[in-house]
């Protein structure tokens, strides 16, 4: 597996700012993985993404894209990446199909627009002006636009924000399929369900620095409690008991509870992604 992006000691400061927005971050995005960048608002996530997609180039440190210096790449770089911005960006007075045809016209290779729009349930609304679309429809169209050029790397910002659960499922399935075919995804989101379902690795960006890079599974174990919580019904009411996870197979009290009570649920004590986000960033998930 190659390295899609290799970022070393990245620093960036906006001209109007007195201090760095990115304070020396280092990370790799591996080819074929979904890499999630999480953090509270203003932590530097969007700036990092803007740098990686070459919208900002006045940075220090080094960024390699599949082994090549990002700064040395010309506009053909954009043939290989797809970008789904947080806020849907389309011409509102043009229909969805007109928008897609306009954008796809600039790429050497393109996908079947009809197939993609059908998949996200927008084909029947193809002749409706984008200005008349609901927020969820705009977000789905945004996702379609990001995939128009069969990208090698996909940048997605809050990709399911404002989308109903059914269509969010479709989008997440499409991302998983994209990854299964070898595509790389750089995901920025506040939606912890998306992170848990999609990301192979995640990085937390806090105060312009990366404070943690790991897999969701390892983080859940690292920040969780090694315990088992059992809920059972006793005299018509719900009762619960907590046992240490270590040596659970030899815990007599646990075994007796399983044998004598009407068990309702059994859960290990790993933390949820929301809890980890709060622990690592110190900011509540909204």
């Amino acid at each position, binding site marked *: 597996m190659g390295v899609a992006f290799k970022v070393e000691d990245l620093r960036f400061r906006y001209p109007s700012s007195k201090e760095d927005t990115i304070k020396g971050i280092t990370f790799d995005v591996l080819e074929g993985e979904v890499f999630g960048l999480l953090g509270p608002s203003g932590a530097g996530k969007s700036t990092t993404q803007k740098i990686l997609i070459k*919208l900002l180039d006045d940075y220090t440190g080094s960024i390699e894209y599949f082994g090549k210096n990002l700064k040395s790449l010309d506009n053909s770089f954009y043939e290989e990446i797809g970008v789904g911005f947080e806020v849907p960006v389309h011409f509102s007075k043009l229909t969805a199909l007109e928008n897609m045809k306009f954008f796809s016209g600039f790429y050497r290779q393109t996908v079947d627009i009809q197939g993609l729009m059908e998949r996200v349930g927008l084909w029947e609304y193809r002749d409706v002006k984008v200005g008349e679309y609901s927020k969820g429809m705009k977000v789905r169209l945004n996702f379609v636009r990001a995939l128009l050029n069969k990208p090698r790397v996909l940048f997605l910002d809050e990709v399911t924000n404002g989308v109903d659960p059914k269509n969010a499922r479709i989008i997440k399935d499409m991302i998983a399929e994209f990854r299964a075919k070898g595509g790389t995804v750089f995901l920025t989101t506040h939606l912890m369900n998306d992170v848990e379902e999609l990301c192979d690795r995640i990085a937390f960006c806090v105060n312009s620095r990366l404070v943690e890079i790991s897999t969701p599974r390892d983080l859940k174990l690292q920040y969780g409690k090694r315990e088992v919580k059992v809920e059972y019904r006793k005299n018509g009411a719900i009762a619960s008991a907590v046992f240490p996870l270590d040596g659970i197979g030899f815990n007599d009290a646990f075994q007796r509870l399983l044998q004598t009570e009407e068990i309702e649920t059994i859960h290990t004590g790993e933390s949820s992604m929301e809890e980890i986000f709060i622990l690592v960033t110190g900011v509540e998930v909204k």
Partner: protein
Amino acid sequence: MSSQARLVAGELKRLAKYNILPVSLATAIIWVVLFLFLSEQEAREITPLLIFVDVAAMSILLLGASHHLEKQEGTIKTMMVMPVSTGQILAAKTVASMVLAVESAVPHLLPCFSFMGLLSTMLCFCCLLP
């Protein structure tokens, strides 16, 4: 179609869809109709002002409105992550602005020509076009 031609075609299509071209044409026609109520002397005096206000200022105003809409919609961000250069995007916008100015200027030719003559009219417009 080349990327540059596609960008220009896109700009012109949007000028039409966002009603910039029709509004510009309608404004020009209103000015031309007003000429019918002026004497030749008044028309000669008002022509430079008219050309400045309608052909130049209105074009700038309408283009500004078009770019403001683009900024609001964030579409310029999308254009910046396509395999086209900033220069190509700017060139397309320049061509579109020239088309807008020509579209506004042409309706003025007829009344101006009627009292200023061909050479003076052409000179006047050539000086003002972008």
